[in-house]
C-alpha cells in the first residue's frame, strides 16, 4: 500500500509522458500529434510537481498565522511548472495555427500525405 502511495503520482506522470510520446511517434493526423504534445506537457508538469512534494506537506502560502514552515512543500518546482504551463500553451497555439494553414494549403492533416520535400 505504501508503495502505491509513493508511486501513484509518478505512475500517473510517466503514464502521461509515454502516452504522449507514443501518440506523437505513431499518429498521422497533425491535430492528434498536437494533442499528444499537450498530454506530454501535462505529464512533465505533473512529474515536476511530484518532485517538490513533501510527505504530509502544506501549500507554501502563509495565509494565516501558525503555519509551520517546516511542513511546507518546495515552492521551486511549482514556480517552474507555472512557467512550463504557459510555454506549453504558447507552443500548442502556434502549432494549431500552423495546422490551420497547412490544411488550407493541402486540404488534409495527414502527415504522410504532406511530404513534398524529401531528403
Amino acid at each position, binding site marked *: 500500500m505504501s508503495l502505491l502511495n509513493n508511486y501513484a503520482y509518478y505512475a500517473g506522470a510517466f503514464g502521461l509522458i509515454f502516452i504522449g510520446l507514443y501518440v506523437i511517434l505513431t499518429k498521422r493526423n497533425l491535430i492528434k500529434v498536437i494533442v499528444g504534445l499537450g498530454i506530454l506537457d501535462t505529464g512533465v508538469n505533473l512529474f515536476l510537481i511530484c518532485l517538490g512534494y513533501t510527505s504530509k506537506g502544506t501549500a507554501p502560502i502563509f495565509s494565516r498565522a501558525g503555519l509551520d514552515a517546516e511542513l511546507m512543500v518546495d515552492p521551486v518546482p511549482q514556480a517552474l511548472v507555472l512557467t512550463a504551463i504557459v510555454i*506549453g500553451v504558447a507552443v500548442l497555439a502556434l502549432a494549431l495555427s500552423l495546422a490551420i494553414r497547412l490544411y488550407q494549403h493541402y486540404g488534409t492533416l495527414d502527415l504522410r500525405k504532406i511530404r513534398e520535400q524529401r531528403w
Partner: protein
Amino acid sequence: MILLVSFLVLLMLTGAVAASVFRDLISAVIAAAMVSLIASILFYLLQAPDVAMAEASIGAALTAAIFVVAITRTERFEE
C-alpha cells in the same frame, strides 16, 4: 486518500488513452481536457494550488477551446 489518488490516476490515464484512440478529434480533445482537469486536481492534492489554478484555467479550458476552434477550421475526423 490513497484510493482516491489511485482512482484519479487511473481515470487520467484512461482519458489519455482515449484521447489517443478516438477517431473523432473533438472527442479526443475533450478527453485531453479531462486529463488536464484531473491533473489539476492532482496538483491541488500535491499542495500546489497556484499550479492547479493555472492548469485548470489554461491547460483545461483555454487549450481545449483553441483546439476546438482549430478543428472547426480544419477537419473533424482522423482518417
